[in-house]
């Protein structure tokens, strides 16, 4: 993963629980990096270890940690660092979601060392659509749920997310039905 992901986790912890708590989490996770550079790549295991340690330290389920992180990623990280780019994605939730595949396909150009997931959109209706999530990484579906919730927050839309299909049920990808 790129350092920007680990930095975002660090900022999430520090903003909500303080720097001391982050130092504790970093020490307990056994990770030797005390500073992450956004455009450097780090082993995926570091990110998973951080999530695991936060889960234990904050007494939260790992799914809740991933959802919180997904929300934070959209609401804070991308807004702070890529606000302009986010705004070019669309002026409302529906438009942004429809643009998400094209938007995300560009990410592999911006981060050449990344193995990015792929999104597809189908069944576009007036107030709902289906988001297909393809990823080589396991265990990030709740992170995607958090991302969608985060988009609901920034576009001030009340949204409902249903997981229609999942790799854990034998599908080759996840399908989320998003209604607003």
């Amino acid at each position, binding site marked *: 993963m790129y350092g920007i992901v680990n930095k975002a986790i660090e900022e999430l912890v520090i903003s909500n629980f303080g720097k001391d708590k982050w130092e504790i989490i970093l020490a307990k996770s056994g990770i030797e990096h005390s500073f992450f550079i956004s455009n450097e790549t780090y082993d995926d295991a570091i990110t998973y270890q951080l999530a695991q340690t936060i889960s234990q330290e904050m007494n939260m389920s790992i799914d809740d940690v991933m959802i919180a992180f997904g929300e934070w990623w959209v609401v804070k990280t991308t807004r702070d*660092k890529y606000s302009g*780019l986010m705004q*070019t994605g669309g002026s409302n939730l529906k438009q942004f979601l429809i643009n998400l595949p094209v938007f995300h396909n560009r990410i592999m150009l911006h981060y050449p060392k990344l193995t990015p997931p792929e999104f597809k959109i189908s069944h576009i209706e007036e107030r709902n659509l289906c988001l297909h999530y393809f990823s080589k990484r396991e265990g990030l579906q709740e992170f995607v749920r958090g991302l969608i919730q985060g988009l609901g927050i920034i576009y001030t839309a009340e949204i409902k997310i249903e997981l229609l299909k999942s790799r854990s049920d034998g599908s080759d990808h996840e399908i989320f039905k998003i209604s607003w």
Partner: protein
Amino acid sequence: MEQLEFNFRKDTFSKIFPFYILLDTNLFIKSYGNSIPKIIPELKKTLFKDNFSISRPHIEEYSTNQFNTIINQLVILKSNYTDETILRGQFEIIDEGYLFVGSPWFVSIDEVVQKNLSINDFAFHDSLLDILHVSKNYEINYNDLKELLKTVNEQRNILKKDKEELNKLSLVARANKNGVVIFDTKGIISWCNDAYLNIVGLPLNKIIGSSIHDFEPDKRYDPIEIESILNEFEKGVIFNNEKTTISPDGKKIWFKTIKQPVRDADGKILNYFAVIEDITSEKEKEENGNNSAVTNESIPQP
């Protein structure tokens, strides 16, 4: 040789070049791409020169003769309505008119947002947004490195202060008249002062790496007793004891030894240190005092 011809419907052409401008032979704007009105809402299908000026290359006048001189060149257009809007691209002669194909020029993604443009306003092949994103990444990286430099400097200052403090403590320990020895929870010695060397009566190279139990006043022979003490070290137990030894010249010497763990911020034992104090003179005074008391007691009082 077969000459290939490309014919597009206006909509398809606008999809590929959403910022195109088509001029007729009189240099009137005949048509333009779907995204142009977003950046120049005032644009009219009037004379090109009423709407745009050519910043580069310079031309004497807006005539077909002059336009013919700027074919095969990078052309920079500015909107006459606002200086901020710049288009970069090229003119091609087409059906005796002129076709401009290009894109708006922005140096930051914020400028794109200011013009209310979205990714749908650009052709997929147009790399402008991606280049702006990569540029943004460099900016983020630059800020990260500045932050890292600040962190490194702060840590360096802390380390400098710690080192100064450590040097002071080291001086105190080194110059201490009592024996000071640092060892791990296995009893292996990593540092000692000169006073300890005098107590042990051996040079430094014979001591470092040896066990504290190899030397008086902590010499131990019984492996079970040693194992038991090492277990106590692992637990961080503080030791406080007194012991007598006999010096090479046959004199009885009393030592008081305090051993205690040094822990890190999380309470983990880093190592142990022992302070070994020669209390022979105190003990001798004590013994003399006791003897005097016994002597005094034995003399009948008047």
